[in-house]
């Protein structure tokens, strides 16, 4: 039997098919990166539990308030959002050991040793009429302040910025400079 030549497969249409598939995926997919500010909400207090006033020493707390007209108060001072970062940095680092600014407590950090950790807490309060944009702008400044302090610390200790440290080092830095932002209980909800 004479061997017949196998006919060449017609492959001209594969490109069209692939194009169609490509178009389908282009239409149905999104490529936008999801990003945002990550937060952890405090757990809801039990109903039966007495609301114990965990008295935080007054010097350890800074109240950041945004009113319904998106005006910002930080520690009873009216200020612009651009000034907030430096105020928070000063509050958290307390470079001059001011008795009105938060105290530091020596804490043992695994893998690092003793470090005076600031006990400062930022309490963020807002009105129901505050715009979301202003709220995020303030949140962003608070995170930025903490991030800058962490960067300074990382540079002093490891000679690198925080983002370039390895996981263990980041953990140490996070422990040395905690991000204590408390989003206060809304006033009108607790008053039930």
């Amino acid at each position, binding site marked *: 039997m004479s061997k017949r030549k196998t006919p060449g497969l017609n492959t001209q249409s*594969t*490109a069209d098919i*692939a194009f169609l598939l490509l178009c389908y995926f282009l239409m149905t*997919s999104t490529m936008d990166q999801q990003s945002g500010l990550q937060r952890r909400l405090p757990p809801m207090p039990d109903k039966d539990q007495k609301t114990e006033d965990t008295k935080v020493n007054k010097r350890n707390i800074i109240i950041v308030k945004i009113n319904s007209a998106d005006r910002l108060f930080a520690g009873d001072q009216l200020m612009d959002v651009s000034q907030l970062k430096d105020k928070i940095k000063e509050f958290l680092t307390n470079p001059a050991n001011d008795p009105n600014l938060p105290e530091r407590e020596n804490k043992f950090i695994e893998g690092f040793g003793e470090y005076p950790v600031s006990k400062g807490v930022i309490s963020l309060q807002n009105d129901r*009429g505050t715009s979301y*944009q202003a709220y995020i702008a303030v949140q962003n400044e608070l995170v930025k302040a903490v991030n800058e302090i962490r960067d300074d610390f990382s540079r002093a200790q490891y000679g690198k910025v925080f983002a370039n440290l390895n996981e263990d080092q980041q953990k140490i830095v996070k422990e040395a400079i905690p991000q204590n932002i408390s989003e206060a209980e*809304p006033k009108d909800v607790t008053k039930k």
Partner: protein
Amino acid sequence: MPELGTSSDIVFMFLFFFMVTSQLRSNEVKVKVKLPEATEVVKLERKDLSSYINIGSPTAQYQAQFGTDARIQLNDSFKTVDDIRDFIAAEREAMSEADRQLMTVSIKADQDVRMGIITDVKQELRRCSALKIMYAANKAAAK
């Protein structure tokens, strides 16, 4: 006629690139959401473990029915704050035991929304103990 044998390969490469880098559009957004901008944003790590709550005023085609006030959209429909509990429960149910701890609720709110509705949502999330949240925001160019 010149041969065009490689063009299908190239197109296939394109196709694979898009298949790998993209995720399917989850659902139709019925509220207008223009995310606020922030410089210190972090990436959402596990997209499969996150649920989305959209908050904003309804888009033009729904305004006749739902008005222009800020509304909450869960999955595909307009809901109220009270429905969040069921929504979170359903989302939790769909996850494996180990992943439930890592669930993140991403709040996608329009930048012009008032904080009142967001505070309500936050309180409801606390009641359902869905404590890991994320305020969705676009990365702004650092000044």
